[in-house]
């Protein structure tokens, strides 16, 4: 009987438990990295002490959000908070404190805040407000323009702050739009753009064009259910084009066709695999499908031809450098690649079970840069090993899946859209951050949710999650 007296039993304790586990784990790892001789984890002059303060502040905020602030407060004030954070972002541009080449901090009293972190919440709220309007459809131009405006305004300012990482997070909102009815073509095209971009830089425009053509052929034939023919034609085309330069003995083309035969084979296989993913995502009538496929092909050709120009003329030096190191074009473990190299050494040396708590050498001796913030995952990998890393991945996966499942079954569309925003925000952070530490992604400064040191990020992610927990809780009562 008691059970029904306490309505908060219906709160999603899975999410709260995962949150608590991650936060505490992050705290002791920050202590492990930064501790000196005989230090106290509650020493508030140290970062690990301060981190505890931030955990407490976050906990209080979460409590307020869940117990005190009414659920409809967020939808009601969405535009006010959105506008406020946009103003803060702009203020940061003018009077912000710069560090590490980006100007993203603002000094308020004794605290330094990073408005970009909070802009993720307000943008999510604003997006949910816009899209949850009765009769909203992404198919009309005014609606598309509204959504674009809500997303592009903070993106533009953050880009001006030179905070590439935070800007990339907004790409995650595209997935939310996909859930809400946006054509899967946009995602496929986005993916192809990145693929073609990388291929153009690390191999040659020629290779990129051949791959683009292969993708087009696969889509073309598969849409007509001519599977076998599709695979055959695509394979033959790729093989023919791969060996054409050699056959014709065209030196200039041969020079831009540096891939060996087995790599070409891998390309064919990847393209076939890619097709299946695309087919799962896209369900459009045959006619538009064919038209879109042609547009993709045309744009692809133009894109590939312009990438070389973009790469060498538009990108800034440090961005180009990071791309080069990430793509393995330059090998420089002491220079730009230092972060990546040391980070992989730290994680790799952890082995299966890790070196044990506070026994990591690479992280606590300062070989890994930014080890308490962006590279906190190195400490986990080194001291807790593969097991610890998997444990963290499992916690994250639980949180993301749980949010998406709760969001998807919410009756209120505001809750659903906001929930997807939260899930994607967290997912993009995790993939970029962990991907960076293990060499799957370029080095982009972005915190690991709930684990990294940093008050703004800790508070922002906690608030973001708490708002969703509150919304989901209220939604179940309807």
């Amino acid at each position, binding site marked *: 009987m008691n059970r029904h007296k306490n309505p908060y039993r219906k709160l999603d304790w899975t999410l709260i438990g995962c949150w608590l586990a991650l936060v505490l784990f992050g705290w002791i790892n920050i202590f492990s990295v930064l501790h000196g001789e005989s230090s106290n984890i509650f020493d508030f002059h140290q970062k690990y002490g301060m981190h505890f303060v931030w955990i407490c502040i976050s906990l209080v905020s979460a409590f307020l959000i869940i117990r005190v602030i009414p659920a409809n407060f967020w939808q009601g004030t969405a535009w006010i908070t959105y506008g406020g954070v946009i103003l803060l972002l702009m203020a940061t541009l003018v009077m912000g404190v710069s560090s590490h080449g980006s100007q993203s901090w603002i000094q308020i009293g004794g605290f330094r805040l990073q408005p970009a972190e909070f802009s993720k919440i307000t943008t999510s709220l604003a997006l949910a407000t816009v899209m949850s309007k009765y009769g909203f459809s992404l198919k009309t131009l005014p609606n598309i323009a509204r959504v674009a405006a809500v997303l592009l305004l903070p993106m533009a300012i953050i880009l001006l702050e030179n905070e590439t990482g935070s800007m990339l997070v907004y790409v995650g909102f595209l*997935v939310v739009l*996909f*859930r809400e009815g946006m054509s899967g073509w946009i995602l496929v095209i986005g993916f192809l753009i990145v693929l073609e971009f990388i291929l153009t830089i690390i191999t040659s425009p020629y290779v990129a064009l051949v791959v683009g053509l292969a993708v087009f052929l696969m889509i073309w034939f598969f849409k007509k259910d001519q599977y076998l023919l599709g695979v055959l034609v695509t394979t033959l085309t790729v093989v023919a084009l791969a060996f054409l330069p050699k056959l014709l003995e065209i030196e200039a083309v041969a020079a831009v066709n540096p891939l060996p035969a087995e790599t070409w084979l891998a390309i064919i296989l990847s393209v076939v695999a890619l097709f299946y*993913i695309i087919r*799962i*995502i896209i*369900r459009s009538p045959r006619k538009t499908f064919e038209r879109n496929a042609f547009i993709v092909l045309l744009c692809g050709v133009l894109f590939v031809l312009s990438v070389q120009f973009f790469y060498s003329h538009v990108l800034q030096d440090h961005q180009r450098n990071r791309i080069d190191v990430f793509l393995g074009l330059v090998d420089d473990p002491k220079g730009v690649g230092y972060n990546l190299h*040391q980070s*992989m*050494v*730290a*994680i*790799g*040396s*952890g*082995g*299966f079970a890790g070196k044990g708590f506070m026994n990591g*050498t*690479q992280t606590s*001796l*300062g*070989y890994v840069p930014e080890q308490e913030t962006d590279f906190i995952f190195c400490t986990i*990998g*080194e001291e807790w*090993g*593969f097991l610890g*890393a*998997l444990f963290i*991945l499992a916690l*994250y*996966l639980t949180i*993301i*899946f749980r949010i*998406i*499942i709760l969001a*998807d079954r919410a009756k209120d569309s505001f809750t659903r859209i906001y929930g997807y925003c939260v899930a994607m925000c967290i*997912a993009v952070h995790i*993939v970029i951050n*962990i*991907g960076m530490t*293990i*060499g*799957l992604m370029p080095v982009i400064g972005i915190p690991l949710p709930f684990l990294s040191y940093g008050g703004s990020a800790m508070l922002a992610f906690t608030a973001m999650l708490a708002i969703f927990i509150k919304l989901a809780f209220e939604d179940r009562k309807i």
Partner: protein
Amino acid sequence: MKFYLSRRNTILLVILVIFAIIAVRLFSIQIIQKDFRETAENNALKYVTIYPARGRILDRNGNTIVENKITYDIMVTPRNVPEFDTLAICNIFGLDLDYVREKFASYKANARKIGFGSMPFLKQVGSAQFNAFAEKAFLFPGFDAVARTARVYPVNAGGNLIGYVSEVDRDYIEAHPEYRAGDYAGKTGIERAYEKRLAGEKGYTVYYRDAHGQIKGHYEDGALDKEAVAGSDITTTIDANLQAYGEILMRNKVGSVVAIEPSTGEILTLISSPGIDVSQLAEINKYYKEISENPYNPMFNRTVQSAQPPGSVFKLVNGLIGLQEGVLTRETRYPCNRGYTNGKVHVGCHGHPSPINLPQSIAMSCNAYYCYVLRNIMDNRKYDNIEESFNKWRDYVTSFGFGHKLGSDVPYELGGNVPTVNTYNKLHGKGRWKSLSIISLSIGQGELGCTPLHLANFCATIANRGWFYTPHMIKGDEEHPLDSAYTVKNYPMVDQKYFPLIVEGMNMSVYGDGGTSHVAQVPGVNMCGKTGTAQNPHGDDHSVFICFAPKDNPQIAVAAYIENGGFGATWAAPIASLIVEKYLNGEIADSRKELETRVKNGYLLNKVPVRKRKR
């Protein structure tokens, strides 16, 4: 078949796939790839070597011949060196600016290989310079000093015998994998022969350091550390005073002096002249060129490596064999008319009474007498042919230690040469030679090659009346007992009962009428000796002398071999007898001071032909 995923499940699937890719990647770098762990350790662990003190070398009386002094190697960790005052470094150590520039240029060229490692910047810095550096060390981050030991030689004796210690080179490390660049090892002499005992064991302290190369503390509280074990001292059988005295006598002469204590086989002195001065040993690299360009080759240890014909000294061997074979008795007499003539063969001799018996033949060193002896041995009816009798003779000779390595602990010992049947079969053709063809063997000439150590050992064998211990120069102790090779008596094939006859002859050589060794008379010492004058195709005869004393209960046996010194009595006998006198009496009698001065001032280098040496 058509199937569609809901948009939610599409999103979940894509996220799951991406997380799976991350997990696979983690599995790959954490579990499959092993080299990250190694890189991590190289990054973070710093092994600081603790070099043990090398063992001292003592002489038989406990005097120190070699000991250690502390020097410092200045090490530099190039990664930690900021801009610094190059001139100040040069002033402290008295260096050229170019030296510093060159060093740092090479560090830069190898920066990747060096990483966080330390490189030697300057070696063997004395304490004065070290103190000057230590005062200003704060000005030079990245530089530090490692204490090393260097050798000091309190007695100027036995340069060749002791040998030198120097830094190991690449070839040495390849042959001895337990050594690392920067280690030192004995390269010649005792330092080399007893490297294992002298070197001790290196230790190390493991520190961990941060990304800036700063040492942060003891790794695992020293669990991985290893203490250095100092090398053990080595007591040699050498008498340092005697060695030093002998080296003075041998100054400006080319040759060897070897003295052995017959009752133990212990080597008392081992002089190869010209030799390496101990002052050059400590800084061998500085003097190496000078030494190696010296035409008399001071590196060459003549005492064990120079195999030369023994000359008349060898008559004693033939005498002993003759006695054992029964073709010779004490009273066998042979005539000598200024030599031995048979057909075309003529072996000359000097003027002396004739005929003479065995002891007299030794005293007067009659050549003809031993021609008869050798012919009787070779043409003995017991044996079917010359080859058989020659082989028997050869067995006798080698049983005295000739013709092969004695097995002493002197490094690079050579075996010398005793001809075989094959030698003569090749020279004359099989069956085409007879005892007359090899007649020069009777007086120790011809195809014989003996090292001075062989001769000294032979002399000790006579002193012992028929046995010897293999000569050695290291005393055993409780921890390192003497190898059994040095504690077992060796018996030549000649019965002990024949030796007193030889001793009688050697005694007569010193004191008897017509004896060739009168110059070796030492007051208060009953000396036995035998001269030798070895002909050679390269200039004057070599002067050879072996002697032991006292006649009864001998305490020292000496062999002296002075190249191109003329008659045995001219140089070798005075030198050997002075050694005996110094050893037994402690000082040189007034009556022999003149002789001593003559020997000390003797200059024979100009008589020694300088040959182009093979390396």
